[in-house]
Structure formats: C-alpha cells, structure tokens
C-alpha cells in the first residue's frame, strides 16, 4: 500500500502505465468500507429520517413533542456530564497508578478494569441488579444483619446506579488513553523539575498533567460520547422514570409509534455525536507528542514510600470494589437459589444449585423462547465470526489509508465513527424499513445481524490497526524492495509480521463486540435465531427465580467468554501501543 511500491515495482497497480488518474488511488482503500457504510448505514438512516421528517409527518409535531425533545436532550447532557466527571475522578488516579507503578497483580487489575467495556449492557445491568437490586446481595446481607423486613437500599431505579454503571463501564478508557500518554512521557522532564526544587505535587500539577492534557481531553470526549449514547444501562437499571435521547427514541419508535418524533430525536442525536466525534478527531490528530517518547517500562517503578503505599492500597480498594463486586455477583447469583420460580408457591429451597445451567439445555414448550438457550449461544458465535471476517476485510484497507494522515483521512475519519454514535434503535428501524421490499428484500434474513455488528465493530477495528500500521517504518519496506522483493513479498515479509498481532487483537475486539451487542440486535434479530444478549434480556424481563437464574447463567457464560477475549487482546498488544 505504500506510495513507493506503486511507483517502482513491476507488479504494482500503476504498471499499466498511468491510465489511472492520481486521485483514484487514495480513494481505493476506502472503497469497500464506503460502499458498505453507504448501503447499510447512510441509506437506512436517510430512509428513517425521511420517514420521520417528511413534511406530512412534521405537521404532527407539536409543542409537547418539542418540549419532550428538549427535556430528553437536557437530561442526556446532564447525566453524561456528571458521569464523565465521576469517571475522571476515579480514572485519573487509576491511570497514574498504572502508568507509574509496578506491583503484583497489575495485569490482573488491568484486565479487570477493561472487562466491563466489552460487556453487553444487559450483563452489566444484571450484575448491578444482582449486587444492588431489591433481591441483590447487598440488600439481602443488610436485611439479614439488621433483621429488616424490606430492602433498605433502593439504588436500582435511581440516578445513582446509572452514574455508577457508567463509571464502571468507562473508567478503562481514561486508564488506557491517559495512562498511555503518561507512560510515554520523558522522565527527564520531571527529573529536571525535581532538581529545580519542585515537590511531587507541583510536578504533577504544573508539568505532568498539562503535558498529558490532550489525552485527558480525548478521553473525556470519548467517555462523554459513550455516556451520551448510553441505552441499555438507562433502560434496564434506571427504569421508566429516566429518559435520555436514545431511550426516548426507542420509546417513541417502538412503544408509542410516533415515528416523526423518533426521527427528530435521531437527527438531534446524530448531529450531537458528529460534533463530538469531530472534536475527538481534532484532538487526537493534533496530539503530537513533542518530547521523545520513551518505552513505557522506563516510567515504572516499584512502590517505595509510605505515601505511595497508601495511595496504592486506597486505589486497590476502590478499583476492586467498583469492578470486582458486580462482576462476582453475577456468577454467584447464577448458582444460588434465592427466590421462588415464577408462580411456584411452595417453600423455597435456598442454596447452591446448578439447576439454572442445566435448564439452559432444556427447551420447555411453554418457554418464552421457542429455541433453547444454548442455540442462542451458537447463533451468537456464528454472527461473531461473520462480523470478524467482514470488519477485517473492510477495515484493514481503511486503517492503512488512515495510517498516513492526509486530507481525505481527516475528512472521512469522523464519518467512520458515526455508526457508534447513531442510535442503535434508529439503525435497527432503518434496516427493517429499508430492506423489506425488492431488490433489497432481505429483512427476513438473519444476515442483517452481523451486518449491523460490523457497522459497530469496524471503527474499533480500524482504531486498533491504525497505530500498528502507522508504526511500520517505510525504510524497512524500501530496504526490502531494493534487495529485489516484489510488493507482495515486501508485504508478507515486512508488513504482516508487524501487524499480525494487531490484526489478531482487532479480530478479537470485533468478536467480543459482536457477542455483546444488544441495541441494534434487539430490533433486527429474527426470533428464530436469537443472540445471547437478546436471550438474557428476555429472561431478565420475566420475573421468577428460574428465569432470573437462567439469565444469570447465560450472562456469566458471556462474561467469561468476553473476559477471555480481553485477556487475549491484552497479551497480543504491544505494550503502550494502540489507543485502546
């Protein structure tokens, strides 16, 4: 893909002799992804926005609708800002901890903080429910300890649990982005400041943090985007009283069936997300580290002083509490019988049981699903594999094109991030409306699910591959070519070994994203081919111990698979490289 290859080697694409104009070549890598995005993102989006916003539909909008839109927008900003603030409060000290200190269990803690990001919202909701819900461990423990008759803590259904879940989800972004920047700082700058008499706090405040300000800003914007578009957490943990833009879009489209209003809200959300992602791109592209970056290891040191030990202990308690407790409540709830099955009125046999797992493999005809849950697991795996293949095939060329920043890249980069910000519900509705008549009549096809997943996974794949591809020095390729290697040989001998790890990491990324996707899937999935998160949400919404237990069991399986995926990504990453 390098310019040098195309010009000099016999096997290159322009060997036909200049018939191809020079402006086509930069566009070629974007071709596959553009067609894909155009057909499966922009076109359905345009269809649904038109459905909602054509003149005959706009007349139905009235003052109440506009008030509702303003109210939703306001609340979305409010909870996103609050969540981002709290995430920074927890994440910045954690980033400093990981970047500066080396301690036993560090990689375990790193993986622990990263797992929530990959977990589907239903799993997180289930975990917090299992921990803080009316039948959760905290309430049961308190009721047992103080002999209370009803649950003392009613966090589920309040703003607090929403904020907590957001912090749980997004702290890893701050840790990674800011931590990376911190660990690449030249230690000599700080050492110089220390020799000039500054104490550690002054160094931190006046030197270190300003140097990593771009990464703090980038992390804040990214966390804000994710909190802004949060759906599952608000819907499942917040309950009917809380309504962000995306939840309102869902309610208006799916429950109230007011498509014009849903269209208007989708447009507002899209514009906001586009603005934020442009902001993010600008910050990242302008984030040129001026001082010579050092490998991460040179900044690590063992914990020595008492103050450092106290800091480490405090952070360990906070991080373990925040991340470990919900993650552990889940599997515990999946093997413990704490409440009666739906409709069963006899005495409850409290205690450990593997009943919920064995129940997954039995297909009761009275079940709310007509496929047994383990088939949902199989479906999810199949969709995930398809997603990996598709997103790598489309994302690899894009990543190589982005590895060399140019005008085209700057222009198309935010558009690439757009699927992340567009409401999954809007996307799902768009799919249903667009692909239900010839020549695009495949709304009944189960393939729509991996297509939707690819839309969401591709930005992450590109972001994972980009730094690795950018890190290949051209000199190596030139050296290989000057020794007589053809362009294919150069690619296999030079490029591939360097990007192999990143490619595998990107593949695992796409895999885990697909496994956990919930928003778009809930609209597009065919009922006879459900995915695992859909199955979990359905079982969670049916009360009774058996349904709840099965949901917990499936959520535990999903959590374990995602956890293994993250572990793999961790091992494969070049330490310090990559934005995530």
């Amino acid at each position, binding site marked *: 893909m390098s310019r040098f290859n195309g010009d000099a080697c016999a096997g290159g694409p322009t060997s036909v002799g200049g018939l191809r104009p020079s402006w086509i070549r930069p566009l070629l890598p974007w071709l596959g992804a553009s067609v894909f995005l155009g057909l499966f993102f922009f076109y359905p989006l345009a269809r649904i926005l038109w459905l909602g916003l054509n003149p005959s539909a706009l007349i139905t909008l009235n003052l*109440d609708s506009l008030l*509702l839109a303003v*109210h939703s927008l306001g609340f979305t900003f409010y909870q996103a800002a609050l969540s981002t603030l709290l995430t920074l409060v927890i994440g910045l000290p954690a980033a400093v901890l990981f970047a500066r200190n080396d301690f036993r269990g560090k990689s375990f803690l790193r993986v622990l903080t990263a797992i929530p990001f990959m977990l589907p919202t239903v799993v997180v909701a289930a975990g917090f429910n299992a921990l803080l819900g*009316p039948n959760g461990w905290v309430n049961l423990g308190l009721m047992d300890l103080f002999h209370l008759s*009803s649950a003392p803590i009613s966090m589920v259904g309040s703003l607090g649990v929403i904020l907590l879940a957001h912090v749980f989800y997004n702290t890893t972004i701050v840790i990674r982005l800011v931590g990376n920047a911190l660990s690449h700082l030249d230690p000599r700058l700080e050492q110089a400041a220390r020799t000039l008499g500054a104490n550690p706090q002054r160094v931190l405040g006046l030197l270190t943090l300003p140097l990593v300000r771009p990464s703090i800003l980038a992390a804040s914007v990214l966390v804000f985007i994710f909190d802004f578009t949060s759906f599952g957490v608000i819907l499942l943990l917040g*309950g*009917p*009283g809380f*309504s962000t833009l995306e939840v309102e879009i869902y*309610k208006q*489209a*799916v*429950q*109230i*069936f*007011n498509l014009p209003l849903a269209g208007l809200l989708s447009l507002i959300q899209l514009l906001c997300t586009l603005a934020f992602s442009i902001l993010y791109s600008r910050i990242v592209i302008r984030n040129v580290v001026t001082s010579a970056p050092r490998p991460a290891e040179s900044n690590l040191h063992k914990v020595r002083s008492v103050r450092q030990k106290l800091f480490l202990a405090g952070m360990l308690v906070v991080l373990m509490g925040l991340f470990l407790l919900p993650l552990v409540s889940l599997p515990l709830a999946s093997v413990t019988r704490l*409440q*009666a*099955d*739906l*409709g*069963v*009125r*006899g*005495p409850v046999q409290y205690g450990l049981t593997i009943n919920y797992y064995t129940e997954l493999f039995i297909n009761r*005809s*009275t079940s*709310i*699903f*007509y496929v047994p849950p383990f088939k949902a697991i199989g479906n999810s795996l199949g969709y995930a594999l398809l997603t990996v293949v598709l997103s790598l095939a489309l994302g690899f060329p894009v990543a190589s094109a982005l590895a060399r920043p140019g005008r085209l890249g700057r222009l198309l980069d935010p558009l690439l991030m757009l699927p992340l910000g567009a409401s999954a519900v809007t996307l799902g*509705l768009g799919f*249903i*409306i667009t692909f*239900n*008549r010839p020549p695009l*009549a495949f*709304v*009944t096809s189960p393939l729509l699910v991996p297509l939707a997943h690819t839309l969401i996974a591709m930005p992450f794949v590109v972001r994972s591959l980009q730094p690795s591809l950018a890190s290949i020095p051209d000199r190596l390729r030139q050296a290989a070519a000057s020794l007589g290697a053809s362009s294919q040989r150069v690619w296999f001998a030079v490029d591939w070994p360097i990007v192999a790890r990143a490619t595998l990491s990107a593949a695992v990324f796409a895999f885990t994203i697909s496994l956990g996707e919930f928003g778009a899937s809930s609209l597009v999935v065919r*009922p*006879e081919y459900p995915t695992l998160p859909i199955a979990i949400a359905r079982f969670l*919404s*049916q*009360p*009774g111990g058996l349904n709840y237990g099965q949901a917990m069991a499936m959520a535990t399986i999903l959590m374990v698979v995602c956890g293994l995926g993250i572990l793999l990504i961790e091992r494969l990453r070049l330490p310090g490289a990559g934005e995530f």
Partner: protein
Amino acid sequence: MKRYLLLFFLLAATLFSACSPAGPVTLTVMTHDSFAASQSVISAFEQANNVKLVFLKSGDAGVALNKAILSKDAPLADVFYGVDNTFLSRAITAGIYEPYASPLLAKISVQYQLDISDQALPVDYGDICINYDKAYFLTHKLPIPVSLEDLLNPEYKNLLVVENPATSSPGLGFLLATIKHFGPDGYLKYWSSLRVNGVVVVDDWNSAYYNNFTGSSGHGSQPLVVSYSSSPAAEVVYAASPLTTAPTASILGPDTCFRQVEFVGILKGTRHLDLAQKFVDFMLGQQFQEDMPLQMFMYPVNPDASLPSEYIQYAQTAPQPATLDPSVIAANRDQWIADWTAAVLH
C-alpha cells in the same frame, strides 16, 4: 466450462432444496408475551391439520403490534394474536390484517365484535382491576379501598403498584378507567396526587405482579396491584397447598375496572391462508376457549365454552366496568399517554 457447471449445480441444489418433500407445514403465530396454551390442545390442532405451530412471543401487546406494523410488507408470521381494544385502532389503520368472516363469529356476542370489518376477531376478554392482598390488609388493620378516590388516602402511601401505560396493556386499561371516571380534564390531577402518595410504576404486568405484589410468589412490598379480576382464581389454582378461599381479591367499585377484549387476525401476505383461517377458527372454537381460562386467565368469548369451577368460585367480573368508545380511545390515546408520562414520570 467447469465454472459454469459448478454454478449450474449450485443453482440446481438451491432450487431443489426449495421444493422440499411434503412434510408438515409450519404456521407461525405472533403473540404477546403472555400467551399460553396447553400442549395437548396445541398438539391436537397440529395433528388434525398436519401442521407445526410456531409461537413467536414478541414482547408486550404494544411492542408486538408495532413490530407487526413495521414488517407488514414482509410479515414475520401468518397470524397475529394480542391486539386489544385499546390498540385496535392502530392495527386496523395500519392495514396489517386480512379480513376473515369466521363462521364462529355468529355465536359471539356483539359487544365483543368491535371490528365490523372482521379483520380482528375477538378471542377473550377480561377486567383489569386492582387486586389486593387480604392477608396484608388484615395484619396491618387497614380498611380495603373501594373506589379510586380512596387510593389517595395517606394510609395507602407507597402501597400501590401500577404498570406504565405506554408499555403495558393492563396499565393502559387502568389509565383509561381513571380517564372515564375523572374525565379528560381531571385525571391528571388525580395522578399527580397518586404520585404524591407514592405510587410505584413498573414497565410490565409480570414485574408488577411477580416482583412487587405482596400476594404472589414474589413477596414484594405493595399489597395493591393493577391486575386482572381473574388473578385471584389463579392464586387458588397454583397454590402450594389447597385453599378454600382466594388469598387475594379485586376492587370492583364503579369505574374502578376496565373491560379489555383481545383479538386475533390473519396477517396480510401470509402464504398459508387456509391454515391461518383454520387456526383462527380453532382459537374461537370450544376446545381452545375452554382451555384458555386456566392458561391465560382471560374469559372466553364463545358462550359454548364452560368455565372451570375455580373461576366460578373465585374470579369476579366487574358489575360496572369503565368503558370508553374505541374511536375516542383511538383519537386520544397517544396524547393521554404522553400527558400521563409528563405528569407521573418526569
């Protein structure tokens, strides 16, 4: 040449696979989540007609209907059961049904045949009423409320759980009962007072009844729940040990209950019209109608169907249920729900 041969074989294979041997045809029935029927009754239909029945449980009534409307050009199923009289107008306007004048309609009372175009045929009816837990009121020495106004009394603070009318048809039914009683100009004031008195709102009937209600297996914290007048009978049927009286009962004062009728219809675009019509006849027929009360806890519309004894003893129908003209509901429902949401949830 080899490539064309391969292509030809692939095409032939797909064509042949499309013409599968004459096994049982699959008839897909889209329903709301609360659909239930005895396996024996379903199997009887399957065997009699050489068909395999597949039930797509698609969420609560409103959500399932919206899914059907959105996919009406490529329908997800052959038959759709689950629209009730509060959502009927939306289904008819969207034109998702194929009309079918079933011969069994002649038996059914006119008061249930709310759709004269025979696109949606009535299957069952029920009264949405507030259920109360007798044991709770006894131990706490509270008088049982008899009217909607009673629920505003401070002694019932935090004791009532209702469902969100946007997502739940019992919730919508109760909202319509309050609108009938207090009028479109007074009901919001009532709900604001209810909100001050600590009414709990959840999204669906399952959560309200099995998580929040004290009188069910969930052992929740609210002894008053919006449910059906047949739920006390269900409590007796499914009791752990035999009971002689129902542990719960319904509040049956004037206008406190709402009459709900549920409908079935054949989806336009079905490829199995004959079978779909047979299935509709089956749902209106005596066997299914007699099985339904103990499965879905709704009353049968077919007068030939006999009620189980538990129903006659423990279930009650409201003497004066609140009713609203379907066209009035159709015209105002969405606005009422929006206003309610603003008054109670925001």
